[in-house]
C-alpha cells in the first residue's frame, strides 16, 4: 500500500523528517507515537503533499505510484485521507455542500458517475448518525462553531463517507472524553475491512485500546526509533519518552 524509503523533509528552512522508513500493507493499522514536536503532523502533511513541506530526499510509493509527484488533490483522489489535528473552519460552506463536492470529485477521478442528491443525502445521514452528530450538522458551515470534539467527529464522518484506501488520523483522540473516543474508534473500526490501511497518530495508548494496531512505531526527532507490536504502546504509557534520552516538555498538549 505505502512504502516510505529514507524520507527527509523540511518545513521552511528546518529539516524535520530525517531518514524515515515505513512499510504499510493493505489492511494494516500502524500507530505512530512520539513526543510533541517529533514530526508526526509533519509526516502527515508531507505524505498528503501540503505546500511548504519540501521533500529533500527519499521515495514514497502509494499503490505503485510515485506519491511525491502527485498534486494534493490527486493524492486524495487516489485514496489518501488525512484527518486533521486542528480542523479548519470554512464559514458559509455547509458540511453538506462540502462533502458533496468532495465525494463527487473522488467519484469523478475514479470515472464514476456523480451521486444524485438523494443518494448523497442518504449516505451523509448514515455517516452523521454513525459518529453521533445531529443531522443539522450537515447544514452547518464546515467546522463553523463546532466544539473540539465535534470537529474530530466531523473528520471521522468525512472518513466514513470517502472510504479512503489509506487514512492518516492525526491525534483524532486528543481532547475527547471516553464516549467521544469510543465514537471515533467505532468509526475507524467500521472501515477496517482487511484492505484499507490506517496510520493512527496518537499521544495516548488509550485510543489503542479501542483501535487495535498491528504495529506501533515511536517517532522521535524525525525518525522511527523503535517499532513493535501493541505492547510497545503500553510500555510508552508506563514510562513516557524519557528513555529517548532527552528532556521532553509539554507532553500533554
Amino acid at each position, binding site marked *: 500500500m505505502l512504502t516510505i524509503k529514507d524520507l527527509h523533509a523540511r518545513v521552511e528552512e528546518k529539516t524535520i523528517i530525517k531518514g524515515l522508513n515505513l512499510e504499510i500493507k493493505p489492511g494494516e493499522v500502524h500507530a505512530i507515537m512520539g513526543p510533541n514536536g517529533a514530526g508526526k503532523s509533519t509526516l502527515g502533511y508531507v505524505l498528503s503533499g501540503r505546500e511548504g513541506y519540501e521533500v529533500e530526499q527519499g521515495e514514497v510509493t502509494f499503490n505503485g505510484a510515485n506519491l511525491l509527484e502527485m498534486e494534493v*488533490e490527486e493524492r486524495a*483522489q487516489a485514496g489518501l485521507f*488525512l484527518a486533521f489535528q486542528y480542523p479548519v*473552519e*470554512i464559514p458559509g460552506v455547509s458540511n453538506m455542500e*462540502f*462533502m458533496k*463536492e*468532495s465525494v463527487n470529485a473522488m467519484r469523478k477521478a475514479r470515472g464514476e458517475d456523480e451521486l444524485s442528491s438523494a443518494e448523497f443525502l442518504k449516505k451523509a445521514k448514515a455517516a452523521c448518525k454513525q459518529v453521533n452528530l445531529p443531522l443539522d450538522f450537515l447544514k452547518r458551515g*464546515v467546522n463553523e462553531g463546532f466544539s473540539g470534539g465535534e470537529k474530530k467527529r466531523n473528520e471521522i464522518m468525512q472518513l466514513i463517507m470517502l472510504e479512503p484506501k489509506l487514512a492518516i488520523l492525526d491525534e483524532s483522540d486528543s481532547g475527547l472524553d471516553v464516549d467521544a473516543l469510543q465514537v471515533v474508534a467505532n468509526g475507524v473500526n467500521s472501515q477496517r475491512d482487511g484492505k484499507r490501511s490506517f496510520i493512527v497518530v496518537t499521544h495516548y495508548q488509550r485510543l489503542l485500546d479501542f483501535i487495535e494496531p498491528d504495529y506501533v512505531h515511536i517517532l522521535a526527532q524525525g525518525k522511527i526509533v523503535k517499532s513493535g507490536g501493541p505492547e510497545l504502546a503500553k510500555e510508552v504509557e508506563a514510562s513516557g519518552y524519557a528513555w529517548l534520552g532527552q528532556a521532553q516538555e509539554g507532553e500533554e498538549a
Partner: protein
Amino acid sequence: MSEQIDQALARKYDAGFVSEIESETFPVGLDEDVIRRLSAIKGEPEWMLEWRLKAYRTWLKQTEPEWAHVDYPKINYQDISYYSAPKSMKDKPKSLDEVDPELLRTYEKLGIPLHEQEMLAGVAVDAVFDSVSVVTTFREKLEEAGVIFCPISEALQKYPDLVKKYLGTVVPRGDNYFAALNSAVFTDGSFVYIPKGVRCPMELSTYFRINEQNTGQFERTLIVADEGSYVSYLEGCTAPQRDENQLHAAVVELVALEGAEIKYSTVQNWYPGDENGKGGIYNFVTKRGLCEKNAKISWTQVETGSAVTWKYPSCILKGDNSVGEFYSVALTRGKQQADTGTKMIHLGKNTKSTIISKGISAGYSNNAYRGLVRMGPGAEGARNFTECDSLLIGDKCGAHTFPYIESSNPSAIVEHEATTSKVSDDQLFLCQQRGLDPEKAVSMIVNGFCKEVFRELPMEFAVEAGKLLEISLEGSVG
C-alpha cells in the same frame, strides 16, 4: 498559496465576443446639437429635450469627482459616441420574427433566449443593445395586470405624463457629474409602473449589452411602485472584450409609494479589462430609491465586472416606518478597482436599514466599501445595522472600508461591524485534501462568504451569480 496566485491570472470572460451587426452610430463628440439629434431620433416630447439641455448645461459647469478610491486616466468626453443602434431597429420591429436574427443570437449566446417559450418561466426581459431596446417580452401578460414594462423611450411617447411626474424626482438632473451627463444624453433603459395594490405577476429584468466600439452607454431606468404594490426587478450587463475603455454611466430611480415594495437586483458583469488593466468598462452609476410611508426598497448587487466601478445604490427613507436594504457582493481581481457601497438617509420615524457588504479582492485589485448612514432630526427611533466583510485572496490586493455615520437624532441607533479575512492556506489545503482542485476550492470558499447576499437574489439568479463568481475566479489560483 501566494505562489499559486502569482501564476498566470489568466482570466476568462465568457461574454467578450463582438456581434457583427450593422449599426447607425453618431460620430464621436458631444454638444447641444448631438442632444437635439438624439432626442429627435427618439421622437421625444419638447419638454424632454429642454430637460436634457438643462442637464447638459449643468454638467458643463461640474467637475468629475475625484474622492473615490479609484484611479483611471482622464476621460475625453469628446472621444465618445453618444448614440449607436442596430440599423435593423430603425423600422421598429413589431414582433420577434422581425428582429434581426443576429441580435437574437447574441442574447442566446449570453444565455438569455428572447423567445418567450424558451425563457425562464416567470421572468419578463427588456433587452437593451447599445442605445436601444431590442425587445421586451411578456408584455401582454403584464398589461393584463396593469403593469407597464417598456423601454423608457417608448414610455416617453406613450405615457409622457407618468414619466414627467417622476423623472428626476429621486436623482435630480444635476445630482452629480455622471448623473448630469446621463440626464443629458441617456438613450434607453426600462420604465416600470406597478399600479396600486398590484403584485407584479412576474420578475422583470433588463439585460444591457454594449456592442459598438467607442460608444458610451447611458441608460436610464425608472421604476414606480404605486401604493401597496410589489415588484422584483433584475438587471444584467455584459460587453465585448476590447482594448479601449468604455464608459457606462447609468441612472436608476426607484419610487416606492406608501406601503409599496421594490426589490432591485443587479448582476453586473461588464468586461473588466485584461490582466494588465487594459480595456474594460468604467461603470459610473447613480442608483437611488425613495421610500414613502411603510414602503421598502431592497438593493441586491453582485458586481464582478468593469475595470472601474463607482456605485452607491441608496435609499431615502422619507416615510415613517420605511425600510431600506443593501446586500452587496463585489469581486475584484486583476487590476480591477471598485469603490462601492450605499447611502441610507433616514428621514422618517422608525425607519430601518440593513447593509450587508461582502468585498472580495484577488490579484492586484482594490476593493473599497464606502457607506453613509445619516439619521435626520426627524428619524425618531430609527435603526441601522451595517456588516461589512472583506475577503482577500493572495497578498497583493487591497480592501478598504469607509463608513460614514451622521446622526442628528439621539434616539436613532447605528450599529457597524466589519471584518477582514483571507482565504487561508489551511482552508485551501483542507479542500484539496478532500479531492477538490484549488479553483473549485476558492470558488466554494468565496461562495460561502457571500451566502448572506446570494440568498437575497431571486432563485433563478442566485445560481447564475454563483456560476459567475466561479468563472470570474477561474485562474485566480495556480
